[in-house]
């Protein structure tokens, strides 16, 4: 079993300890349940404590630009149309026309049937096209359909695939099934990067978040992502802490760098900066990079743009001065 590192893009064999962990269902269960537990009070206290960091001046400007460059600008509605996606792509390319030095976002995230439209609109820009897949958001379908979903997105040119794990199988303790499914989808992705959505709001405990994170990393996910955005609670700081700790620990064990993506409910610059502080202090400075950290967001971008203007112009401009799409 091999995993692809986002840092090197070369498959590397896992350390023996981890290779053994995935030998069979029993070993996998033993490994995941042997991970240190997460104390709820402690992790929430730490997240709240780091949330009081005061980021000002140059550090704030840097954080805003970095956060913009990490946004996966997302539209995932039943009502999505090609026109909507084209508008989103235009916004991704030039977020703030009055300040053309504003960084571009990392990627645009759409449903599989609209990948083609996004690819066309973003051609030659270097902005990624991410597609949700695998019977998003519930993941309740057959393996064949999930794989076909992925194939459809990849064939249309998606550079990134956001899959959902089978939470039902996970909660039933059938870790092997979840593991194999992630592996199969990773294989179906080809060159596209795989983000594995854990839907932490349905996993209910931090211990489960840690186990699901490791499961996704073992199976070769390039990113672990909190949520679909369709379930409440979506991303929270403490959950993201646990996931950042997982990629940090993974790097300690394997030397590989894997990414984290909180998604859903992050709407303000203030929140985004709290996440960046957590990235900086929990995972470490190397993760302050769009290759290793993304925000799944739609309305966050405009708040970042408004705050960026405030920093540059010295006064707040207001929502009518940025574009809705």
């Amino acid at each position, binding site marked *: 079993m091999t995993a692809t590192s986002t840092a090197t893009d070369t498959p590397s064999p896992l350390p023996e300890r981890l290779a053994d962990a995935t030998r069979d269902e029993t070993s996998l269960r033993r490994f995941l349940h042997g991970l*240190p*537990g*997460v*104390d709820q*009070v*402690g*992790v929430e*206290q*730490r997240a709240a404590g780091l949330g*009081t*960091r*005061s*980021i*000002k*001046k*140059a*550090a*704030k400007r*840097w*954080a805003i*630009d*970095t956060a913009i*460059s990490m946004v996966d600008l997302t539209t995932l509605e039943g009502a999505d149309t090609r026109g909507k996606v084209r508008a989103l792509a235009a916004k991704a390319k030039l977020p703030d026309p009055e300040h053309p030095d504003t*960084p571009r976002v990392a990627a645009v995230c759409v449903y599989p049937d609209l990948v083609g439209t996004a690819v066309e609109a973003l051609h030659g820009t270097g902005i990624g096209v991410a597609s949700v897949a695998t019977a998003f958001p519930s993941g309740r379908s057959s393996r064949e359909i999930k794989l076909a979903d992925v194939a459809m997105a990849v064939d249309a040119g998606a550079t990134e695939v956001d899959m959902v794990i089978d939470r039902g199988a996970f909660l039933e303790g059938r870790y092997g099934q979840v593991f194999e499914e992630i592996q199969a989808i990773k294989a179906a992705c080809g060159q596209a990067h795989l983000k594995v959505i854990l839907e932490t709001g349905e996993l209910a405990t931090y211990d489960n978040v840690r186990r699901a994170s490791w499961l996704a990393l073992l199976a070769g996910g390039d990113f672990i992502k909190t949520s679909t955005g369709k379930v409440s609670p979506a991303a929270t700081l403490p959950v993201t802490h646990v996931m950042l*700790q997982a990629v940090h620990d993974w790097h*300690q064990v394997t030397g590989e760098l894997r990414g984290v993506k909180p998604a859903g409910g992050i709407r303000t610059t203030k929140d985004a900066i709290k996440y*960046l*502080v957590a990235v*900086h*202090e929990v995972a470490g*400075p190397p993760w*302050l*990079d*769009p290759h290793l950290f993304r925000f799944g967001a739609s309305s966050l971008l405009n708040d970042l743009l408004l705050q960026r203007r405030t920093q540059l112009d010295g006064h707040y401009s207001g929502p009518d001065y940025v574009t809705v799409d």
Partner: protein
Amino acid sequence: MPDSPFDYAPAPESRDLANLKPAYRPFVNGEFVDGAGEPLKSVNPATEEVLAEVSTASKSDVDTAVKAARRAYEKTWGRMPGAERAKYIFRLARLIQERARELAVLESLDNGKPIKESRDSDIPTAAAHFFYHAGWADKLDYAGYGPDPRPLGVAGQVIPWNFPLLMLAWKIAPALATGNTVVLKPAETTPLTALVFAEICQQAELPPGVVNILPGAGDIGAELVGHPDVNKIAFTGSTEVGKLIQRTVAGTPKKLTLELGGKAANVVFDDAPLDQAVEGIVNGIFFNQGHVCCAGSRLLVQESIVDEVLAKLRYRVSTLRIGDPLDKNTDIGAINSREQLTKIQELVESGDTEGAQRWTSPCPVPERGFFFAPTVFSDVQQSMRIAREEIFGPVLSVLTFRTPEEAVTKANNTPYGLSAGIWTEKGSRILWMANRLRAGVVWANTFNRFDPAAPFGGYQESGFGREGGRTGLEAYLDV
């Protein structure tokens, strides 16, 4: 994409908020008066600059203050109905809240602790102590000390420099709630917030003499302790001074409570929630630069996970930011005095000499002021000085154990016994350990949590008596 590291720009709290005055004076009988003692200069330990000149008390001032407290006790405070006393104490609590920012900045200036701690921990907890005890003032009949328990009279209180205002709250709130009046001596190096609290007493229109505050050095503390008309002594500070006080008080009718040093064991089992345990270890020893009597200064780790814990701990400690205490992003502030810094350095050198492995955080340390980088000693043995003596600084000693029995034996193998920590996800083991650890406070899967409702105090050389909770009232009642 800018390629700069995420260096947090300075985010200093304005020092103007502290309303720092050039001179401060003792508070006796409701008035600020000139003390007859040698004036002292209070220094900002982060910059070594003089903050203010403080007029200090002399022996005769102690006598004047005790007489004022006695008068207030007999004429007003001791007779006042509990519900009336409660109104005053609630007022003190609210005024502390109203002036919280000012007090927090002043505390950080005078003591050197990070503003995030004075702002989020010291001052709110101090206010909470007054709120909590205000609630007791009219319910003493139901506290379990019989119907109508009586106060003792005048309490002489001496407090340390590590939590200047919080220790004042721990002392004054229960004394006032139970109907006693007080003469309090703040620490020599940190008198300022206590004297602002004196202003708050005026604002609250507390009757004159109920609270008297006398800045000064140890000799004034000794004078207060030895004064024949004081009924109760409460002291928080070093074991050495505690022993002197106990000798002084022996054979007199004075009641005494002592809250002294500690060398707390923080015990981490192999089934602990490791990341949160690391947080707890960091909080246990680096909170307030380790100037905490209940600091978790002895880390006992199960041998099977010591390498993993040390690796996680070193990474985490290297992210701590040491520097300007007024910067909101500072995690570790200044050591309170040059004297204390010298003591820490001396003990750390003994650790090197005795063969422990020293690891120091690579974080940059300010050149001016009294600072000491976070330090972790591994391979520490029970017989070394750094495992026995209280360092009272940001220095952790890491020892190992093999079995729960051995953890208990090693944890209890100390002349102290103030606090302990247990880290395990096994509930039965928490209870088993807590029953066996000889420490006044045992935290499970957390550390350094304080609440006015929870009694705090020690065993053996950590002192006796409890502060906080229903139990803490007993120290100020004639029962």
